[in-house]
C-alpha cells in the first residue's frame, strides 16, 4: 500500500506492506536512523519520535497509521546549524554514553519543555520513565533536561518562513514557535 506523510517538514511517501511498523519505515525506507529500535514489547523508548506533536513509540505505530500525519524525528532538532538546547544539555551534562537511548530521550525532553518549561526533577523523571537507559543511571539525563530548561533558545520574533510556507506553523503558543 501507499503511505504519505510529512516527516521533519517534508512530504514523503512510500510503498509499504500494511503491517510495517513506523520505526522501520522511518529507519529503513527514509534512512532516518537516529530513531532506534530496542525491544519487542513497547518498553524501551529508543524509538520515540513525534506524531502530530506528541511523542509516540514508533515501534507501536503502524506506518499506515501515520498516513496523512506529521512526524518529527531527532534529525529535526537541530535548526540552522544550532543545536536545540536539549541536545546541548545532553552534551554539557554528559546525558549520554552509548547514545542509543538518547534520541528517544531527547524527543520526550523537548516535548516536556515545550509544555512545561520549568519542570521539577520529579516531573522530568516521570516524563522519561517509559524509556530505558542502561548507561547513565538517569541522573545526568535529568541534569541535561534541567540544563535545557535553564538555557531556552532565544526566540526569533516571527515564525520562520520555511515553516510558514510549509503551512505548518505549529498550534503552540507563540513562545514555543521557533524552538521547533
Amino acid at each position, binding site marked *: 500500500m501507499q503511505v504519505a506523510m510529512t516527516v521533519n517538514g517534508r512530504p514523503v511517501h512510500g510503498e509499504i*506492506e500494511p*503491517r*510495517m511498523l513506523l520505526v*522501520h519505515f522511518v*529507519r*529503513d525506507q527514509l*534512512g*532516518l*536512523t*537516529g*530513531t*532506534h*529500535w*530496542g*525491544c*519487542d*514489547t513497547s*518498553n*524501551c523508548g*529508543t524509538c520515540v519520535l513525534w506524531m502530530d506533536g506528541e511523542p509516540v513509540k514508533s515501534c507501536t505505530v503502524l506506518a499506515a497509521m501515520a498516513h496523512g500525519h506529521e512526524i518529527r*524525528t*531527532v*534529525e529535526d*532538532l*537541530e535548526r540552522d546549524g544550532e*543545536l536545540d538546547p536539549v*541536545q*546541548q544539555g*545532553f*552534551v*554539557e551534562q*554528559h546525558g*549520554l*554514553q*552509548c*547514545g*542509543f*537511548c*538518547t*534520541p528517544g530521550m*531527547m524527543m520526550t525532553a523537548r516535548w516536556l519543555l515545550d509544555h512545561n518549561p520549568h519542570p521539577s*526533577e520529579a516531573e*522530568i*523523571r*516521570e516524563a*522519561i*520513565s*517509559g*524509556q*530505558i*537507559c*542502561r*548507561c*547513565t*543511571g*538517569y*541522573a*545526568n*539525563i*535529568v541534569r541535561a533536561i534541567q540544563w535545557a530548561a535553564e538555557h531556552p533558545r532565544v526566540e526569533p520574533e516571527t515564525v520562520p518562513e520555511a515553516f510558514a510556507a510549509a503551512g505548518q506553523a505549529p498550534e503552540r503558543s507563540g513562545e514555543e514557535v521557533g524552538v521547533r
Partner: protein
Amino acid sequence: MTTVEEAPAVPMGFGRMTRKEDARFVRGRGNYVDDIVLPGMLHGAVLRASLPHARITRIDTSAAEAHPKVRAVITGSMLEDLNLAWMPSLSHDVVPVLATDKVRFQGQEVAFVVADDRYAARDALELIEVDYEPLPPVIDARQAMAPGASVIRDDIDGKTDNHIFDWEAGDRASTDAAFAAAEVVVAQDMVYPRVHPAPMETCGAVADMDKVSGKLTMWSTTQAPHAHRTLYALVAGLPEHKIRVVSPDIGGGFGNKVGIYPGYVLAIVGSIVTGKPVKWMEDRSENLMSTSFARDYHMHGEIAATADGRITALRVKVLADHGAFNNTAQPTKFPAGFFHIFTGSYDLQAAHCEVSGVYTNKAPGGVAYACSFRVTEAVYLVERMVDCLADELGMDPAELRMRNLLRPEQFPYTCKTGWVYDSGDYPRALRLALDIAGYEELRREQAERRQRGELMGIGLSFFTETVGAGPRKHMDILGLGMADGAEVRVHPTGKAVVRLSVQTQGQGHETTFAQIVAEQLGISPQDIDVVHGDTDNTPFGLGTYGSRSTPVSGAAVAVAAQRVRDKARIVASAMLEVAPEDLEWEKGRWFVRGDPSVGATIGEIAMAAHGSLELPEGVEGHLDAECVYDPPNLTYPFGAYICVVDVDPGTGQVKVRRFVAVDDCGPRINPMIVEGQVHGGLADGVGMALMEVMAFDTEGNHLGGSFMDYLVPTSLECPMFELGETVTPSPHHPLGLKGVGESATVGSPPAVVNAVLDAIGVRHADMPFTPAQVWRSMQGRPLRTDLAVE
C-alpha cells in the same frame, strides 16, 4: 561536579571536557550496526528452540525455501557438511552454531533464513517444521549432579554427568585451622541469580563476503574486534588477512558483546552462500534468552572471627551454573574468573574457596554485565558475610568494616589467594563515605523511625576490584595474550592521530584517549583523532571488557605518546643545535635548559621531523611511535558505598532514598566521564538488587524473555547519586590510572541488599528484592528467586 563552571572548556590533558563523540550522537548521526545498509543487502533471521532439552528428529525447510523472498535456508546438518556446525567456546568447550543432534536450551539456534527483507525472513521461520523428542530438562543447578539427571552434553565422548570443572584457591589447611580456633563462625547460603547485561542495542552483524577479492568485511556489535578476527580465522578457516572486523558505534555492551554468537557466524555463512551482504539483528527476546547472561552463582559462605570482631578467615563453596555450553569469557587459567578475590578489602589470616561448574539447560555465558571476571560475585559474597557477622556480633557494620580493612601501610598487599593489591587507602575512603552520608545522623533517624514502625535501612559495602588483565604470561583468552597495542602519530601540522585496539561501547574513548595523548604531548584533545573499532586500521589487542581499556590500552597510549615526546626531543635538539640532554619539557614544547625563550613547540618539531632537517645518525624522520603494553600487574580500584532505603511495611516496596559512592580509581582522565561510569553502575546495582532476574520454571521455560518480564531500572527507581572520590595512584601504571568501568556494578548490589535487609531486620534472603520477596522475607518465608518454585 562543583568545578564545572571553572574548568576550561577543553583542558590540555586531563580534566572535565564534554565528549567529542556527542556531536554525532545528539544529532541522531551515530552509526550502529543496524544503521548499516549495503547495496543488495539481504536479511537473516534465526529459528530458535522452543524447548530447553530435546532431540531433533526432523527438520523440514521446504516450505520456507519455497517462499518467494527467501534466498537461503541453513540448518545444522548443512553446516556439518562444511565442518562449521560447532565452534570453539571461549572456555575450551564447543558451542553449536546451529543445533544438529539436540537442542540444549530454550532459544538455541536451530536454523537460519536469509531473505530479501527482515519481515520476510521472520515469516519464513514460521514455515520451518521441526520435530522434537522432548527430554527431561536440568534447570536447577543444585540438581545437575544428582544421580539420574539427564546428561546434557552427550555430544562429548564418554560424558556421563553434567560436571564441568572443579577449581580451588587459597589454603585449605590453614583455613580449616583458623575456623577451628575461631570464637565466632557464621555460615550463610546465598544465590547471586542469573541476570543479563541487556544493552539497549541488541547484538547483530552485517557480513559482506567479496567473492572476487575473497575478503570478508564484518560489521558487528563487538567489544573485541581483533579477537573476533582471529577467532573467525580459526572457526571458519578464512585467512586472517582477508578478514576485516569493524565495530562501529556500539549501543552499550557491559560484557554482552565480548563473545562470538552463532548469529554472527550465520551472517557470514549467509553471505558466502548468497554472494550478497547479509544483515542479522536479533530482537530483544533473542538477546535476553540466548546471549551471554551473568552470575548464576550458588554460594555457601563461612566467616570466622574473634568475639570482638576481628575477621580471621573466610571459606566459600560455589556451585556455578554455566548453562548448556561452557562459554564463559575469562582468562584461560581461571575457570571461575577472578572470584578468588573474595577476601575483599580485609586483612585475614586464611581463606579458601572451591568452585564447581555444572551444565544446565540454559543459555551459555556467565561472565558479563560489568562483572570484572566474577569480582561482582566475590564482592557480593564477602560484603554479605561481613553484614551477617555484624548481625551475629551485634556490631555496627561500619565499625566492623573499619576494624578489619587493610591499612595503607600494608600495600602492596598479597592476599591469601595470591592477588597482589597495588595500592590503597581504604579507611580514608570509608570515612569519606560515612561523612558524606552523615552516617551517625542516619542511624539516629533510623532508630526514631523504627519507633514509629517505619522501615528505613542503611547498607554499606566496601569493594576491591581487580581489573586490567593481563599480564600476558598469566592471562590469555583462547591462547591470545592479554596485551594491547597503540600507535600515536603526529602529522606535519601538529595535529595527531591515535589508533587503539580497544573499542568503546559508550565509555567515551574518543575523548579520554585524546586526553591521554594531550596530557603527554600538549596537543589539544580537539586536534587528536582517535581511531578504533576497525581491525584494518588499528593495532592488535584484546579489546574492551573487564575494565581493561584504561589500565592496559591507556597505558599503551601513554607509553607510545611518551616515545613520541622522546623522539621530538631528538628532533628539537637538531633544530636548536643543542644536545638532547640540555632540553627540558614543558607541556607542548622542548626548550633549552636555562634559556626558556629558546625552544620548539611540538607542532614546529612535527613539521621539522617531516621536512628536510638533517637528523642525527640513526634517527628516522616523521613523528610517531607505537607500543604493545603488557601490564606488569592488574590494578585494584576500590570504593565505599552507602545506600539508604525506605521499605513500605504494607507492600514490601523498596525506595532507594540515597546512594553515596566514594570511588578511588587513581587519577581521573575526565571526571565527568568517570562520574557517568559510576552512575551507570550504581543503577545496575539498584536493578540487580531490586528487580533484575532471569528465572526459569521447572520445565525450563525462560521467565525473563522480554522487558515486560526482565525488569531493569527506570528513572523512577534511581536516586540522584552522591559521589565522592579519593585518589590513590597505581604504582605500576605509567599514569597511575586504575580503571573504573565496572567498579559501581561490582560494588553497589551488596550495598542495596544490605540496606533492604537492615530495614526489615532479616539476616539474609536472596536478590532481587521485589515487593513479593521483601514481604515474604518479612514473614520469614523468603522465595527462591532463581526458580519459579516454592
